[in-house]
């Protein structure tokens, strides 16, 4: 039992860190530009496809990851310059409509290029086996993902908390007009943040590719989770995104793994087998509703 809990906790940590890669970009775009980007999940999907294609062409996962992320970031740059730059000025309704349109375009383009079947992305040969930690076996590749996630979180923290650009970003998130008035090149900052966010979500897509199926529609479900994360954490806050991601990752993974077993101890088998999965799948939404009820601005509001 304790082994199961430990293993699921590691899975939850891994899931949470990947959610953080997605949520970090989303929370900044949302917080600084005040722009709802429903297409963030699509960029994650496109990133995964680009990584898969590049890895296949180069016959190396790591080269594929690098090329794929760079390709996605380039796509993000083009999108920002051509479309998002105009969207910042429009209202939320228009942003929702435009990025909804982008989801349609991205899904259909991917289906046209790669077909409707999921694309296979193999983890690097050396990492495909399990490793033994504390008496049980855990896939080496998942450990690498955890390491990647922690490293990115650390880099991001240093970047946002310790550098001048990071200071501008934080200033932009808490008061955009004032930041502009202080003479910061806000449009340039927006572009940089957007491209960086796209790169991060493509990285998440590429890293998760070998674990999940790379397929059309993979972006939509994860997008909602990323939104839940940034709402829990507080829009515009990187720290909130990290805490929110870990909470959501842990609660979701542990809930799915343990809740049915726990309920079986308290309820008749019949009721537990029906209620368990249902409750596990809505657990994070209940959590979000509860957090919003008590802290309507999220745990770490950026605009304090």
């Amino acid at each position, binding site marked *: 039992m304790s082994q199961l809990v430990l293993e699921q906790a590691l899975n939850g940590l891994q899931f949470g860190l990947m959610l953080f890669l997605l949520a970090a970009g989303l929370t900044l775009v*949302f917080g600084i530009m005040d722009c*709802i980007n429903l297409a963030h999940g699509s960029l994650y999907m496109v990133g995964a496809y680009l990584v898969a294609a590049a890895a296949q062409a180069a016959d190396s996962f790591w080269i594929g990851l690098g090329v794929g992320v760079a390709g996605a970031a380039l796509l993000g740059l083009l999108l920002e310059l051509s479309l998002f730059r105009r969207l910042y000025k429009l209202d939320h309704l*228009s942003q*929702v*409509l435009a990025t909804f349109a982008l989801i349609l375009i991205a899904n259909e383009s991917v289906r*046209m290029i790669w077909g409707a079947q999921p694309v296979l992305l193999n983890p690097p040969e050396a990492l495909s086996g399990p490793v033994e930690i504390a008496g049980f076996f855990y896939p080496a590749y998942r450990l690498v993902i955890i390491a990647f996630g922690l490293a990115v979180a650390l880099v991001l923290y240093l970047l946002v908390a310790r550098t001048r650009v990071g200071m501008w970003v934080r200033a932009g998130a808490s008061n955009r007009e004032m930041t502009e008035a202080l003479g910061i090149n806000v449009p340039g900052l927006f572009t940089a943040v957007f491209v960086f966010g796209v790169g991060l979500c493509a990285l998440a897509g590429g890293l998760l590719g070998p674990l999940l199926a790379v397929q059309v529609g993979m972006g939509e479900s994860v997008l909602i989770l990323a939104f839940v994360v940034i*709402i829990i954490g507080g829009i515009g806050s990187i720290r909130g995104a990290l805490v929110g991601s870990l909470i959501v990752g842990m609660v979701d993974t542990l809930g799915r793994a343990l809740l049915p077993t726990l309920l079986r101890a308290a309820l008749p088998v019949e009721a537990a087998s029906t209620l368990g999965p249902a409750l596990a*799948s809505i657990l994070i939404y209940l959590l979000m509703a509860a957090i919003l009820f008590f802290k309507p601005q999220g745990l770490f509001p950026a605009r304090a």
Partner: protein
Amino acid sequence: MAFYRAAPWQKPVTITLLLALLALPPGLTALGQAFYIGFATRVLIFALAASSLNLVLGFGGMFSLGHAAFFGAGAYAVALCLSGGISDGLVALPLAMLAAGLFALVVGAISLRTRGVYFIMITLAFAQMAYYLFVSARAWGGDDGLPLTGRMTLGGLSLASDGALFYAALGCLVLTMIFLGRLADSRFGRVVQAIRENETRMEALGYPVFRYRLLCFVLGGALAGLAGALLANQTGLASPNLLQWMQSGTLLVMVIIGGVGYLYGGVVGAVVLLVLEEVLSGFTLHWHIGLGLLLLGIVLFAPRGVAALFGKSRG
């Protein structure tokens, strides 16, 4: 934004269109295109669903991204009514509206305490919750959905033929639009629109802002339930896919295309989107790309919706 006021040309145009619609099923049958009666019914049902969202979004100013939950609740309610032996629509449809309305009451009572982006997200979260609940409810078919035991009847009249269902949907839509038109002009409608314009001021004037918005939200949810119940009758299935957030997104797109806060915005948007789908899908399998590009065009060049392109229907 200002208060809604019907344009003078609206009434004659509506009556002409209505007469044309009454002649549609026999006309299509005579032309040997009876297949399109089903399509036309679908358009009417989505027009009703989009109009219900327009009440919440356009008149109430509440940006809900979880409207499909009420749509789906209506579908499941009517499926459960039919399997429970209640096959008369005169009972089943009000029950579906009641179920969707009660659900909206719970969601609204909690969500309306938040503002702005948080409101968008919490309505979305509730819809996702409902979606996952229905997906994991094995007694109600889970993933596969709950098939209807048959179509309902309406006061003893059978709706088994596509033509009959078309007229039933048309009747529901017409009654709803008359209701919404009256509502927009009523005291309640005025207050709700005024709250959209300036909440603080209405609060200061002593209006119970929260209760007005909640009632508007519940009415929208109940009407979405009516549309869901009709759609379940057409497709013969109450599916959890009806509650998915992409469905909420589609309804939202319809309202925005048509024109937010215009009485006929939802109707125009549903017609435009579904007809476009039908036409584009005839040309190419990849019609989503065309649709996406078109939506982008609307955002960038006609941000106030199609209804706004044809004259001014706002005072």
